[in-house]
């Protein structure tokens, strides 16, 4: 169900916890599965459950509780922009409006070409770099002026 490379990564995570606590690796296992598949289908979650010896419902609970799991298909690039107060004081709302206008989509929508999905995020612990956004959960970009947004979208759209 998952590539051997993903399984290897999950196995490495499992070693971090006591042998009778494989469940502790569920967050990273889901993240690794999501990196491979793009989003978490029930089938993928069932696989993770089986692999860690957990009831599937316990895995669904985790996947629905944490915001960074994708429970639906989305565009090639998920862009999450922080709009919390400290960022809003330093241009996050303007940056949001600019991206939305450029891509022609609002939050929780995917661009017509299937390339971008936009999400509203909460504080990413990087408020000094506002406006801040996160690409596909991993790449954080700060000080997002319109110029930098142009360049980023161009790079990601290729």
């Amino acid at each position, binding site marked *: 169900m998952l590539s051997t490379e993903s399984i290897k990564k999950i196995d490495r995570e499992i070693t*971090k*916890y*006591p042998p009778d*606590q494989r*469940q*502790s*690796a*569920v*967050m*990273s296992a*889901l*993240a690794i599965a999501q990196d491979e598949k793009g989003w978490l289908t029930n089938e993928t979650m069932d696989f993770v459950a089986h692999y*860690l010896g*957990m009831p599937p419902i*316990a895995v669904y*609970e*985790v996947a629905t*509780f*944490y*915001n*960074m*799991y994708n429970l639906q298909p989305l565009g090639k690039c998920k862009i999450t922009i922080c*709009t*919390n*107060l*400290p*960022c*809003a*004081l*330093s241009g996050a709302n303007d940056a949001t409006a600019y991206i939305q206008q450029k891509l022609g989509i609002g939050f929780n929508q995917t661009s017509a070409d299937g390339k971008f999905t936009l999400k509203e*995020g*909460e*504080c*990413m*612990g*990087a*408020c*000094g*770099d*506002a406006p801040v956004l*996160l690409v596909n*959960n*991993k*790449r*954080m970009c700060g000080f997002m002026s319109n110029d930098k947004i142009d360049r980023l979208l161009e790079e990601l759209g290729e």
Partner: protein
Amino acid sequence: MTQPVQILLTGVDPSDPDNWRLRNYEQREGYVALKKILSENIPPEKIIEEVKKSALRGRGGAGFPTGLKWSFMPKQYEGDKYLVCNSDEGEPGTFKDRDIMHHNPHILIEGMIIGAYAMGIRAGYNYVHGEIWNTYERMEEAVDEAREAGLLGTNILGSDFSFQLYNHHGYGAYICGEETALLESLEGKKGQPRFKPPFPASFGLYGKPTTINNTETFASVPWIIRNGGEKFLQLGKPNNGGTKLFSVSGHVNKPGNYEIPLGTPFAKLLEMAGGMRGGRKLKGCIPGGSSMPVLPGDIMMQTDMDYDSIAKAGSMLGSGAVIIMDDTTCMVKALERLSYFYFEESCGQCTPCREGTGWLYRVIHRIETGTGRMEDLDLLNNVADNIQGRTICALGDAAAMPVRAMILHFRDEFEYHIEHKRCLV
């Protein structure tokens, strides 16, 4: 101006890509404290004593004395005990732990090893905030470096002390910053806070005695051991030992982290952060992260940055996130955004928090959008009263306190919104 003493980011140079590495850390007295402890066989009680003397208070938000917390761990306990670092920095306005981990990861590792030694713990976890993947990877690399150098693992530096440390990556839930939610999350569950008591020192991770501290708290420990608790205390002021990182965000010219001795005047910190953007007037400041009560600018300008001074001024030092708002800020809109955050992030376990945060957000939203009523201000205070102190964890208080403070200090602005259906600013 003499450069204030720095202990968390001394000699740290983010522009040098290798500056965080073990050998660079060692050049700035890194692991000297640990080596001293192991070579001199310093008894664990002595270390806890030193931390108590330092008046180091938890940097995660509550400001609980660290030495005292460490002394709660059972000593003669036979089974496993755990040490956990709370690096789930998600309190809006806070971005200090990221800088410590990213630019000086070994200071955290050394602090945790010393803590583990002091409490007789053999395994620990560092729970890293979900959104900072690069920093999590940096921590992974740093832990590998320490392991290869014999600083982590079995028989550290040839002694009979062993300690394993692992990083755990969060995945986007503010509530996991609450310590018992964090433990649940580490166990592979939803991050829902536990009832207390029992406290983690008796029933923590996997039901075992556990101590949880914030990243910056651990990172302060090596300096204390090298220089003595008394010296650390003297850096700050009585009951408020040491230096602290303040994350300054909002309407300043140079947002960023500034490490200053506790007790430094706020005006000085503001100056370090480049002063107000555009030379505008300071209208309000949230001095300790979004969960803390806002203070008006003129009160702030006369306050010192330490736990006791800020408490006296009517707020809390919290995580040390200083959110600066100038006179262009609409306080109704600011509060609306914060209330939305707590509503979104409530884990839903307790009725007052689950329902109350929704009420707070909806009522503030209707004031902001011009359909509020004058009675709404009393209603907001009433809802806040019904949340505060009636929930399993402090997220309820965190949602309620900002509402009450905003209405207390900026009531005329809320009234203007209701009467004129638009902003005062």
